């Protein structure tokens, strides 16, 4: 069973995404802010990290940057989840080393499958 780390500051979203991920077979651990996300990434060694972009204190980009600067965590695929719907946002996320980018509000019927697909693609490309 693959382990997903969900870093999301909105409690409702944490609940929703956890349910959606568990339905497609992930074991889910959650962090409610960036710093916690980083710690958990080191301790939990997840197979994938779902990272909210807009967070107080440390946003998604900074978290991603730190993750990428840690050789032990370098290879864990990161999927950005954001309610930023501007056209440049997806490109920016991808160029920051994200394996994928999903806009909020997510399509609950396709969310889980999308994450599985992105993880598989990331593994294949490594």
């Amino acid at each position: 069973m693959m382990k997903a780390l969900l870093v999301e500051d909105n409690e409702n979203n944490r609940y929703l995404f956890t349910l959606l991920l568990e339905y497609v077979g992930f074991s889910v651990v959650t962090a409610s802010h960036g710093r916690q996300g980083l710690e958990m990434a080191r301790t939990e060694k997840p197979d994938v990290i779902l990272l909210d972009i807009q967070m107080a204190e440390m946003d998604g980009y900074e978290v991603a940057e730190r993750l990428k600067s840690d050789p032990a965590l370098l290879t864990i695929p990161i999927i950005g989840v954001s309610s930023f719907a501007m056209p440049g946002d997806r490109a920016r996320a991808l160029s920051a080393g994200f394996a994928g980018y999903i806009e909020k509000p997510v399509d609950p019927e396709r969310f889980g499958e999308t994450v599985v697909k992105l993880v598989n693609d990331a593994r294949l490309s490594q």
Partner: protein
Amino acid sequence: MEQKRLNYMRRILGAGILIAVLSAGSAGVWLWRRHSWDVAVQRTYRIGWALLPPLEVRGDDGRPSGLAVELLRGAAARRGIRLEWVYTDEDPESALRTGRVDLWPILTITPERRKLFYISDPLLETDHCLLVRDDSRYRDLTDLASARIGTSNLTIDGPALRRRFSQARIATRPSVRNLIEDVCAGLSDAAYMNEYSALAALLERRDCGANGLRWISMMQQRSRLGIGATFDAAPIARALRDEVALAAAEHKLGPIAGRWGYLSANLESISAILESRRRELRLAAVAALFALLLVMAIFQAARIRRERNRTRHAEAALRETERTLRLMAEHLHEAVATFDMERRVTYVNRAFERLTGYSTVSLASRGTVEQARLPWVHPAHLDQVQSCWQAAFGGQAVHAEDYRVVTAGGDVKWITATWGPILDEAGNQIGVLCTGRDITARKAAEQTLRQTSLRLATLLNNSPLAVIEWSDHRIVNWLGGAQQLFGWTADEVIGKTLHDFRWVHEDDWPEVRSAMAAMSERRPALCRNRNYRKDGSIVYCEWYNSVLPSGADGLPAGLSLVLDITERRHAEEALRRAHAELERRVTERTLELSAANVRLQDLDRLKSQFLASMSHELRTPLNSIIGFGSLLRQELAGPLNPEQKKQLDIICKSSRHLLTLINDLLDVSRIEAGRADLQSEPFNFNDVAAEVTQSLMPLAGAKGLDVAVDIPPEGIQLYQDRKRTLQLLLNLVHNAVKFTASGGVRITARTAAQRLVVAVEDSGIGIKAEHLGMLFEAFRQVDGSARKVYEGTGLGLYLCKKLLELMGGEIRVESEYGKGSRFEFELPLRSSGANPALEPKAEAMG
């Protein structure tokens, strides 16, 4: 010529009378002379001689010879008179007076000499003359008034010479030869001698070689020559003279004269005449007359020949002159006609023929001018010309005023003519000369000028402008509206200058002076200034000043046209004020507007910011609504009864609709703010089409609609914003599905001219024709009633249009109400060039 002939006759007459008187005298003393003869011949008489050719010369044997010598020698021999010839340099007068010689062969007879010794009746007569060098300046006697004149001391009448040339320096020389040598050598200017000697000298070519000698006759100085003698020897002299005459009569002089060739023929005649004289004194006188005539003829011969030559030359010159004159007349530009006193045309030149069309021949055939009634004169001028004719034939020179002629061809021409009498040498009128000139062109020009002047004057006088003419800065003409404009009459201002009366406004002198300066450089000048009227009021004037050609007096001249611009000035002033006011208001309003604009820009920025924030904030709760709605509906949280399922379906559908609404609103706001970013990437349109059909299939399927796709199987490769392309197609197909109750939707795509052309057709409700125009406007759903049936934000088509504009494409629609619609859009296959929107933007939106 006349004068010469007269002189000649007079001379002959004088000589004749003289001879007659002498003959009568000699007849009176005849008896006394015969009586004393016997005594006289008893002794030898010494007879002097000198070199006086041809009368006295030295013969080849050294003995004296010459015409006079031979005549006397012969006569003495026949009479038995013994003569001893004594050569002497002494002058004959003193030789005879002192008695050193008894006789002298030939001497000029003068009263003075007759008192001192005897001189016989004349044997010969001669004129005297002066020989001068041909190249000298001396032409006649007056030229010689103060010249150096040489003369022989032998036969010459010295006192007479001195009387004639009182100012001249007269030198005596022994012989004629000496005299000529002096002249040739330039020692004297002229040699004075009798014509025998001169003739002999010329005939023997005793001249100055290359320089010939010229003969100046002294006609009044006629001399008679006789045989000189002491009073004792007077009978001998008388006898010798008679014997010469006798010998001549008996033809015995021939051999003597023969030696002096130029006299021989004439001496024959002399002899014949003298013979008859012996028998009859009267006859003798006549004979002597003839003899003298003939002698004179000899020395006149050369003169006559010369005269003839001169005449011939003169005639040739005259002919040449006449020819030249005729040529000149022929080529004269002026018409020339001559008439004799019978008033017949005698000559017309070519110019006359050209002018009138009449030739000499055609005019001559018409007879006199009166008969012909002056055929070329225009009837209107007949009297005028007739009076000129009368005057001209009366001997006056008259100038005919311009008049018209009618040519032979019927043309009318203006001419000017001059008539004058032709006089012969004696001053008698022998005809009339007429010269004329064609002045038709000048007349026409004058006519044109007159008309032009008249037109100009009319124009000026009726002009609303003041027309002022200047000469030397003074007003010389005050025309047109000048009086009306300024108030002064012409009489009040003509002759005045600008400074002479209060006319120019004090403050405007600079403008006026600069205009005057321009005029003085002969440049036209426009001047706007104020003037005073006569009543002191001010008038604004516009002066159009131009320079006229200087008149005959050479003074600077000008013309000014003056326009009253007072009203225009007022209007301009009012306009200026209005303009300034307008300007002020515009500035005010512009300030207000720019402030408003700044506020609007702020508002716009706030709006965009607001929309972006709102969109983000709305998405977060929507995420939960859609997410959990979906989870519940999928019964993942537990089974649902049908009523719950239906209600959850409504929640899901409404929340998705709300999401679309938010997205569209965000897009519109971005596009309107010019901040819509396009991301170009390569993709295949077929994939986009497939995605769209796939996502709409459930909806279409639910309505029982068929969605057909007609795309080339190999696909259409694009380099465009994929997401926007998808959005476009999805929007159109979604609309088609939404507004179609039954039938189907068809998507077709093709390429044309490097563009993708996509059509979406449906069999839906269609759009009314009157609504097509507003179809692509924001927040319009065509039929208000449709809203009740179909959901929509009204932003979809507007967004499509805006997006296509942004991507370089366009959209069209065809529709028939109740039958269906066909939307077609096209896009470049490749997005155009560098698009700043390609750059990723880091915008803090949250």
